[in-house]
């Protein structure tokens, strides 16, 4: 799975995810990637792209949950994303997300996640574990 989330200086947000799924998956199997609110979601507060075990991410409506915690509980992007990853089965979920304020977070509960981020104030990171 690959994904990208972005916010411009006016607070416009977008999310995109693409994948081949599981090795040896059944023909016709749909994963979390194309399911709005599971592997991919964006509203006016944040944009989220998830990766990991698709069936877990669908059951957990992972990307919508991040947005909902921000929308209904007023959590920050980092708090919301960390909580959602924490609440899902270990080893199954990772995500990248940005907020309308220009925050970035990339939590995961797997061994690793290929990831990269950059912000206008000069922060930048490329990491795996």
């Amino acid at each position: 799975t690959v994904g990208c989330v972005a916010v411009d200086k006016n607070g416009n947000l977008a999310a995109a995810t693409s994948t081949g799924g599981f090795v040896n998956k059944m023909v016709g199997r749909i994963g979390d990637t194309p399911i709005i609110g599971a592997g991919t979601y964006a509203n006016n507060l944040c944009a989220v792209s998830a990766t990991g075990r698709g069936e877990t991410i669908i059951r957990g409506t992972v990307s919508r949950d991040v947005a909902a915690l921000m929308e209904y509980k007023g959590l920050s992007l980092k708090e919301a994303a960390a909580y959602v990853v924490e609440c899902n089965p270990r080893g199954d979920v990772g995500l990248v997300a940005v907020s309308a304020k220009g925050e970035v977070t990339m939590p995961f509960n797997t061994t690793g996640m290929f990831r990269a981020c950059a912000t206008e104030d000069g922060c930048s990171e490329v990491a795996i574990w």
Partner: protein
Amino acid sequence: MGWAIALHGGAGDIPLSLPADRRLPREAALHHCLEIGVAALKARRHPLDVVELVVRELENHPNFNAGKGSVLTSRGTVEMEACIMDGNSKKCGAVSGLTTVVNAISLARLVMDNTPHIYLGFDGAEAFAREQGVEIVDSSHFITPENIERLKQAKEADSVQIDYTQPIQKDEKSESPTGNEDSQIG
């Protein structure tokens, strides 16, 4: 508040012992894609265009599980899927079951922009791709020797693997593979 971008190339049981010849090309690709996204944001491109641009680059990189380098189904075929969503309008587009479209993410964008629907799948999505004139190739374009090997191993282990379970190198095969549930879900 300023611009920001984040991208991923998949998560899973990525072993800390990942050899450099597997790690370095992926890290270089992440740097490359990040630079493309940052340049587009600095050029004041809309975030929708930015995320589509970056995911297209990642799809075209054979080391990531999307587009070229997509993993194989139990029948040894490729079925790709993608989704894109705009925050302000909540407009979105999604496609599944693609076998010939080079960039699934761009077809998802066209579903969002050019149809009253959100999601097209399988034959309908393939027909829409031809109608929209997006780049299509023979399915063999997406299949890499590494993923043929991974499918073989998954079948032998009678399991499925998420991104980044590494094919067991032939020389390692002499040892009885310690594959257990964890190593298989990686």
